[in-house]
């Protein structure tokens, strides 16, 4: 009896521990970047607080364009991803409503759904690397065009990859963020009984899509606001995708900051810190701007919601089908391109397939691949386990003590996703070096945890809260202790969401570039850091090897997460 009391009374420690694990590095990171931005970094001779660095920053010739580029690419990418995700979700819920198997478009949407969701597991860098080859002026698309129609001897002088407006960067972001937002919307739909509202809308004479837009979307949006914010913040501050697809003269602000950090002239660190603070302000400003726009749009649309206009829009359906197929096709071809490159010896323009195939690229890298893959796996698995442990602890605390994770603490959990990575990671690095913690495995796992845990929480919280509370109750009445209920009832019943959350956490860990670079002190090479550093070398065959493997790892994890419960419960009809 004492032990059970103890287990339950230990639970409040989980949210506290989790919050500490989060607050500490974020606060330290922000602090560590704010001081140098204000001129204080005694190690580099900065002993006084002043605002000169900011005026220096604002006078930097590349800054205005970089800021414009950052805002433009980040906001447009978010608007596009959200619109596409909403469009696709509307079509998908229509399909599950009618259940019409004969309709060709319907089955197309089924393919889009099945294809798009696993894309959330593919790291941004791998997708960007694949996309870069696909759309380059000498890339796969141009090669096919040349082969089939145009017969170009030299590639056309098109400005695709790294275009000055950041369009390819936006495309790369949309490719990754749309599936993520789609998944978030689909999860939110399960909470609000969307189908019933659509049925009501239909019985009142509204078309399917219109019912969705007028009745379901206003309810769903508040539920996905946080993920949308995370997407916006991520798009504004992304580094790896911007390095691969973004413009170079000048680059986006985050890449500019990274260049300053890397500058051998160490006084640039002050400028980098000020830039990081500016990036934070831009991100916060954009979030506020976004929230305000939401409110404005809602006000403007109030009338539209109840104006009684009915009917249906079939063009929307076609648009969704087109954009969904386009996204899926692009993603598929990008990854296929990586795979082909990894198996090619020579693949010059304008050949549409490699001139010579080889396994040499894989063989040459086999031993370093093994080591890198193992590090990736090790960090991902350990971080995932710690995050799951903490998240389950927090959720159990919620249930046993009937307290809901407060909105404030929930926002805090998402803080790492809302604050630009470059901002607080730079500060953390400075602090970690002081504490001789840089380049340690502990710090590496910790920094990954900051990004893995929110995603695991986001994925697991709803299924956990929505589990029929009578199951644990009846377990109690049958004499089972809280621990036994956890292990024998809840965890098995929630096996699928649990494994999916773990797989997503693993994918997030695999994809981390800046945290691995900063916290790992360069001593831990993961598939992502290798892929990005090989991207600098521009040898597509090696990029293909690392990029493909980088994409393969999380994908296998997700596949396992879906297959294991299916196999485990193959004889349990209620759980299939």
């Amino acid at each position, binding site marked *: 009896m004492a032990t059970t*009391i103890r287990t339950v009374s230990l639970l409040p420690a989980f949210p506290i521990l989790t919050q500490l694990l989060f607050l500490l590095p974020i606060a330290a990171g922000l602090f560590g970047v704010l001081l140098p931005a204000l001129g204080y970094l005694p190690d580099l001779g900065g002993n006084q607080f002043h605002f000169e660095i900011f005026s220096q920053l604002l006078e930097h010739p590349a800054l205005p364009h970089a800021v414009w580029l950052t805002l433009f690419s980040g906001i447009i990418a978010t608007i596009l991803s959200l619109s596409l995700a909403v469009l696709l979700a509307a079509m998908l819920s229509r399909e599950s409503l009618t259940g019409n198997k004969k309709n060709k478009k319907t089955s197309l949407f089924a393919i889009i759904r099945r294809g798009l969701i696993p894309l959330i597991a593919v790291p941004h860098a791998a997708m960007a690397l694949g996309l870069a080859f696909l759309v380059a002026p000498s890339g796969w698309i141009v090669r096919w065009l040349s082969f089939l129609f145009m017969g170009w001897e030299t590639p056309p002088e098109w400005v695709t990859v790294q275009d000055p407006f950041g369009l390819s960067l936006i495309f790369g972001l949309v490719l990754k963020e749309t599936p993520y937002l789609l998944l978030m919307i689909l999860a939110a739909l399960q909470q609000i009984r969307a189908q019933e509202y659509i049925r009501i809308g239909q019985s009142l004479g509204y078309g399917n899509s219109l019912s969705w837009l007028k009745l379901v979307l206003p309810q769903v949006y508040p539920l996905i606001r946080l993920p949308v914010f995370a997407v916006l913040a991520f798009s504004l501050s992304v580094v790896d995708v911007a390095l691969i697809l973004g413009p170079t003269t000048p680059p986006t602000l985050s890449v500019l900051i990274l260049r300053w950090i890397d500058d051998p002239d160490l006084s640039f660190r002050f400028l980098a810190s000020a830039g990081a603070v500016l990036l934070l302000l831009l991100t916060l400003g954009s979030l506020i701007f976004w929230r305000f726009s939401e409110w404005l749009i809602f006000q403007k649309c109030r009338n539209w919601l109840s104006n009684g206009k009915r009917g249906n829009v079939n063009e929307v359906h076609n648009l969704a089908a087109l954009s969904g197929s386009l996204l899926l096709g692009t993603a598929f071809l990008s990854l296929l391109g990586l795979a082909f490159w990894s198996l090619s010896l020579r693949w010059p323009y304008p050949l549409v397939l490699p001139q010579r195939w080889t396994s040499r690229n894989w063989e040459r890298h086999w031993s370093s691949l093994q080591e890198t893959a193992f590090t990736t796996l090790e960090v991902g698995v350990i971080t995932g386990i710690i995050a799951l442990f903490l998240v389950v602890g927090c959720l159990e605390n919620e249930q046993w003590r009937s307290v809901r994770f407060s909105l404030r603490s929930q926002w805090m959990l998402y803080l790492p996703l809302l604050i630009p990575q470059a901002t607080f990671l730079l500060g953390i690095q400075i602090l970690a070096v002081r504490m001789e913690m840089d380049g340690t495995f502990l710090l590496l796992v910790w920094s990954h945890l900051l990004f893995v845990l929110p995603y695991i929480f986001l994925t697991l919280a709803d299924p956990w809260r929505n589990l029929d509370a009578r199951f644990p109750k*009846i377990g109690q*009445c*049958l*004499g*089972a202790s809280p621990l036994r209920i956890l292990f024998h009832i809840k965890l*098995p019943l929630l*096996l699928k969401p649990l494994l999916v959350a773990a797989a997503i956490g693993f994918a997030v860990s695999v994809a981390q570039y800046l945290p691995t670079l900063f916290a790992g002190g360069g001593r831990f090479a993961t598939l992502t850091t290798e892929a990005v550093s090989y991207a600098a070398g521009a040898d597509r065959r090696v990029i293909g090897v690392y990029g493909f493997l980088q994409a393969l790892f999380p994908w296998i994890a997700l596949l396992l997460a879906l297959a294991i419960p299916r196999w485990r419960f193959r*004889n349990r009809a209620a759980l299939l």
Partner: protein
Amino acid sequence: MLKLENISLKIDGNPLFSRLNLEVNAGQVTTVMGPSGCGKSSLLAHLCGTLPSVFQTSGKIILHDRTLDNLPPHERKLGILFQDDLLFPHLSVGENLAFALPAKIRHQERRDKIEQALEEIELSGMYERDPASLSGGQRARVALMRTLLAQPEALLLDEPFSKLDQELRGRFRKQVFAHAVKNRLPTLLVTHDPADAKAAGGDILSL
């Protein structure tokens, strides 16, 4: 004997009922009746110790000579049956029963007990069956047997018959009450169906 002394239930300061006193003797079935929302299910949840903390409670629950109020739910030894059978969907029929059986019964004896229990509810040989593949009546019987195997000292019935069809309901009711009498369990039935109360044959309390 199950004894309730001066039980009061409030939610957000509004009383659902107050100063409820009740005694149920071994083998006896006492029925609590009332319209939905009167707090009869909350009363059972309070007895089990699973009432959410938004409720404020007072009073005393005594089972035989133990006071239950400060015990965690799983140490109260109260068996409960709900409207839904709530068989664990991830466990087989036999495993559902085994979950309830105390851990001190081990090895072959454990298996024997469960086989015996299955036989008793006319499901012999169905240890490995998926609960989802059983009929409604079969599932209800498994739920009852699962409750009994946990060796409770009292039985709480939260409208367990209301979802069964007319014919099944009568039969299952008989089985439940028979088990209550056979195991000499003080039994508290919550229902809004007068037929249930009549069949129970014990005291009737209206909330």
